[in-house]
């Protein structure tokens, strides 16, 4: 190896460039936001928002609760008039399908499909924490009124 022949100026230049590149890459990652604006995710957000008009009264009556696993659950079917029960069931099923797709799409949009479970866990915790007073929430396996 002929290290004796290398010029100090160009070496320090290389090291500086490398360092700057590394710092840029790290900071870009550290302050990064997750990508949630893909067409698939935006479509899910929109349908979930529209469905909320139907679900909100069910949350308020306690028929539907915010489950610990990032889904919603029909926990008290008797609180829904019989005529509307099938509709409530369908709304819960559709909501849970959309939520599963949302968690999967967020993980995939960020290049890490294996993050799906962690995305779900994060959302589950945030849904519970942000549930409105009076709504039913599930902690562990037990339900309580917030």
């Amino acid at each position: 190896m002929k290290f004796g022949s290398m010029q100090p100026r160009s070496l320090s230049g290389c090291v500086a460039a490398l360092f700057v590149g590394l710092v840029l890459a790290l900071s870009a990652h550290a302050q990064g936001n997750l990508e949630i604006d893909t067409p698939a995710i935006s479509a899910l957000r929109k349908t979930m928002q529209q469905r909320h008009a139907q679900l909100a009264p069910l949350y308020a009556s306690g028929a539907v609760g915010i489950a610990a696993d990032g889904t919603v659950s029909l926990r008290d079917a008797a609180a829904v008039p019989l005529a509307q029960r099938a509709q409530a069931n369908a709304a819960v099923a559709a909501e849970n399908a959309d939520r599963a797709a949302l968690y999967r799409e967020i993980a995939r949009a960020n290049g890490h499909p294996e993050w799906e479970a962690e995305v779900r866990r994060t959302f589950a915790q945030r849904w519970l924490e942000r549930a409105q007073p009076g709504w039913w929430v599930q902690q562990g396996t037990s339900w309580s009124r917030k």
Partner: protein
Amino acid sequence: MNPALRWLFAAALAASATACVTINIYFPAAAAEKAADRIIDEVWQMREGAGSAPATPPAAGEAK
């Protein structure tokens, strides 16, 4: 640039690129929470302040 130096530079670049990929494997929990809150705001239409809902007046005693 001398060839040995160029080789060294390329190796260092490759090493740092690998390091970036390694870092990226960890789940960005804070970013995920922020993303979740943004989506929850939108879905539950809570944008006008995450504070107390005015629908229920505080009952006597401690209201959580």
